[in-house]
């Protein structure tokens, strides 16, 4: 089970790199989305047990997957979704005011 955790780390830091390095506002929000998805993937990986079944107990199962991280994942998805909605609303507002999406030009115009 080593590869999925490595993928989570790479995705997390790819998103962090995009947020730090990128000049375009929408690319920054894409980076935020990628980091959000990698954390939710980590939550689901933690809840997985080899050979386990989904946490719906309509019958007696011998091995059931851990339900707590899935509940946390659901909360994290909804919080991340509403955060990105607010970010994109601000991006549209900034574009209407400054006419550009490039961070450096905005800093120059702001003066």
């Amino acid at each position, binding site marked *: 089970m080593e590869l999925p955790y490595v993928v989570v780390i790479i*995705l997390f830091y790819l998103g962090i790199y995009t947020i730090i390095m990128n000049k375009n506002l*929408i*690319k920054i929000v894409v980076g935020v989305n990628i980091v959000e998805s990698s954390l939710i993937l980590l*939550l*689901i990986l933690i809840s997985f047990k080899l050979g386990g079944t989904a946490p719906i107990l309509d019958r007696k199962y011998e091995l059931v997957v851990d339900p707590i991280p899935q509940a946390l994942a*659901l909360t994290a998805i909804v919080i991340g979704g509403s955060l990105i*909605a607010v970010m994109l609303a601000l991006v549209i507002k900034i574009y209407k005011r400054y006419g550009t999406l490039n961070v450096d030009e905005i800093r120059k115009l702001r003066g």
Partner: protein
Amino acid sequence: MTGGKVVIYVILNMLMIFLLFTAFFAVFTKNLLNSIITLAIFSAILIVIFVILQAPDAALAEAVIGAGLTLTFFVITINKTKDWQNE
């Protein structure tokens, strides 16, 4: 492990690799519309991975909120900021 289980885990690892490729392409492509469409593929693969990892609730939520609404908001933002031809 029975034959069926091995096949699923091979598919899971392949999807993980595919996830990485779509993420790298979404970040490093110049045109914004391409990056948004690749983000849609990224979310779709993520949903399949959640189903394989026996997390139906998270898969449904990610499908509806992550792949559904978030990408609609991205497209609206792209639509309103005419800047997406040249990055």
